[in-house]
């Protein structure tokens, strides 16, 4: 009898958890318009232009069934709608005047700001993400470079994916092996950093491919140009998806103040310990007109020492990287320990320069995008002591010393480079 009693109670609990779910808050999937990407621009006829890229589930399903499918197929998998409204939430209401399905933000993957709007401040609009239950803090924050967010979304027709949500995720996660764009672009990090005394946010920098055809851009100055020495919208390329992600947008608090290129982004990822790996090219130290390529990855988290005993902090950063040689155009024998250090030093110098350029830029802009303040605050016992140090005011004046060490560990499938046949 006793066993029956508690079994009844358990069943009652389970039923209670299930029952209320179905009555008021049900939402039929085929009556809902799931927004995948949102774009925000300054309005012309009203305060704000809100653009939504909405999934067309029937076409998404069809494309998936037909293998690769995608925008190259016959049907559009998304519909882009835009409206000018006084507020963000008002725009959603207004959209439902011409979208018959109820707009839902439960599957939003990314929010894109125009540069113009981002320079006025983003939290005015992003605050809704922290409050509105339909949003998640894993939404990516991006800035459209040189183009409006609406135009960017209209041009967002992924070539390799039928599902734009998957495209957004894969395009962003490519930073794991390119280190060209932020690997922590989520609203969570953005919002936390915007509210922090020891950090400033970074967003994805996205643009459409440049109008100038490949080969007709500015001619090469010197013998080479680094693969990361570009901003979104500048890559000399043909084909692929229309949007491109390289570099990042720097914010001071919630206001866009600058941008960094792909190389500087790599430096930032190294300092923030989010760097995983990237192919890095550098001139051959023995034959500078030829190039070498190395797959670089972290050896340990960077050592960051900050001396806060003086009013102006002193910062020392030590970065230890490992590399796998991918290519040596000169056929120099860098596998030999007698020459290896030359290539290691050349790589270290290149990466150090990227880091220094990045830090110089952030100090000039007065932003702590590398989140060095988070390390500095460990030296304080109480929050008041930390606040009284006024980190954001003194950080731009801080002398920073950077040391980079690269150790080459693997050399591919070759034991030693044979001399060039000529």
């Amino acid at each position: 009898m006793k066993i029956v009693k508690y079994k009844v109670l358990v069943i009652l609990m389970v039923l209670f958890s299930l029952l209320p779910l179905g009555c008021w808050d049900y939402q039929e999937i085929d009556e809902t318009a799931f927004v995948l990407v949102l774009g925000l621009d300054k309005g012309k006829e009203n305060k704000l232009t809100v653009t939504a890229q909405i999934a067309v589930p029937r076409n998404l399903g069809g494309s998936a069934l037909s293998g690769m499918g995608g925008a190259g197929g016959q049907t559009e998998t998304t519909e882009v709608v835009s409206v000018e409204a006084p507020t963000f939430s008002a725009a959603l209401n207004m959209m439902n005047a011409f979208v018959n399905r109820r707009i839902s933000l439960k599957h939003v993957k990314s929010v894109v700001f125009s540069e113009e709007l981002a320079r006025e401040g983003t939290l005015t609009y992003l605050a809704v993400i922290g409050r509105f239950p339909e949003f998640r803090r894993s939404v990516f924050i991006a800035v459209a470079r040189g183009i409006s967010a609406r135009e960017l979304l209209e041009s967002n027709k992924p070539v390799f994916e039928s599902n734009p949500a998957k495209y957004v995720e894969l395009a962003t996660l490519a930073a794991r092996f390119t280190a060209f764009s932020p690997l922590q672009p989520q609203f969570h990090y953005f919002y936390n950093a915007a509210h922090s005394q020891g950090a400033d946010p970074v967003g994805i920098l996205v643009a459409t491919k440049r109008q100038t055809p490949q080969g007709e851009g500015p001619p090469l100055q010197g013998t080479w140009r680094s693969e990361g020495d570009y901003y979104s919208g500048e890559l000399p390329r043909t084909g692929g998806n229309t949007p491109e992600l390289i570099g990042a947008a720097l914010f001071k608090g919630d206001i866009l103040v600058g941008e960094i290129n792909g190389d500087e982004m790599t430096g930032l990822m190294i300092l923030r310990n989010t760097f995983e790996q990237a192919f890095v090219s550098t001139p051959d130290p023995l034959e500078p007109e030829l190039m070498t390529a190395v797959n670089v990855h972290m050896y340990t988290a960077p050592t960051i020492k900050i001396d806060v005993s003086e009013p102006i902090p002193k910062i020392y950063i030590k970065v230890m990287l490992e590399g796998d040689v991918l290519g040596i155009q000169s056929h120099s024998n860098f596998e030999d320990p007698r020459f290896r250090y030359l290539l290691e030093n050349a790589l270290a110098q290149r990466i150090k320069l990227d880091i220094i350029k990045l830090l110089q830029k952030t100090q000039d802009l007065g932003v702590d995008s590398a989140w060095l303040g988070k390390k500095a605050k460990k030296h304080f016992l109480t929050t008041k002591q930390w606040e009284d140090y006024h980190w954001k005011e003194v950080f731009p004046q801080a002398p920073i010393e950077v040391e980079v060490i690269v150790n080459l560990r693997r050399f591919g499938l070759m034991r030693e480079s044979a001399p060039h046949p000529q």
Partner: protein
Amino acid sequence: MIPEGKIGPRSVVIMAVLAISPNVFYASSIAADYGLNAAWMVILAAGLLALIASYIPKKLMDRFPQQTITEVGYQVLGKYLGFAAGLMIFNFFLMDSSLSLRLTADRVLTAYMPNTPVPVMMLALLVVGIGGAYLGLEAIARAVVIAHWLLLVTVFVPIVLTVNFWEPDNLAPWLGAGLPAIGIGGLSMIGLFADIFLIAVIYPSISKSQGGNIWVSSVFWGMLLLVITTLGVQLVFPTPVLSETLFPLTQVSRLVYMGRFLQRIDAFIAFFWIGMYAFRFSLVFLLALNTLTQLLRLPYYRPFMFSLGAVVFALGLIPRDIMEATYIVTGIFWRTSWAIVFGLPGIMLLVSLFRKGVKAG
């Protein structure tokens, strides 16, 4: 004493911890107001204070092992003062039930079902509470023993699965608002552990042959649960963001994102959390019924189930909104419940020690 089956000390500790456990959903946010980056230390301080203070009701109940706290009040304080003490104890559980009902409904609706009316959710929870109370203490205890692992594990699941969002730097500066503020916070939040008072209400039903200090164990495990979850939440949210968040642990669960294939698990977890709320409400509602029956010196509580259920429901509707309900719990109930949980037994203990004619049970 109301006739109930005997339950073991382990079951009692589990019930007490499960009664304390719903505090994990918002304790960290309140603690951050007091201790800033040292929010977890505030919870630890509150727990340590509760550990020390739990000696008072333990000492009292050990002197009267065959009586409930209300019956001890009658015996020690006399007819009129004993009634007043019993009324305060009943009022404590009545408030606990009503606020639990309202806050649970508000939390679930805010986070998961924004279009469902609050009274509907409260009514659903009340049905479970009345069902649990009808089945009695032993049934609740056994059900809790069976389900507690599952319910408590789901508290840790989102914290573990957000490991990619952990930032240990969020804990620095280590002393946050400073030691005095941590101490004040600890005192103000001692009410987090007020639910251990249930031990005093069901004391005669506890099988004491197996030994162990159920008071200390209840506070200790409750404290461990709260400190670990607060630390987990702090690793994810920096202080200013933690302070402004209404349900930090719920937000953590909504953040789970481990690639394309492991995300959006919050709806699954919520299922268990609602179960946890339901258990807690069943328990405190039963305790309210028990203390009312003991106050009126009646042998059965079941005749009161529906009438008290209506009162609890009506009282639960009084707070104007979720903010007011939250304030009543965190700003008033947590700050003042020590007077009932530790103060009242302290007075009874002193009187029983010094007043002639009071015999230990």
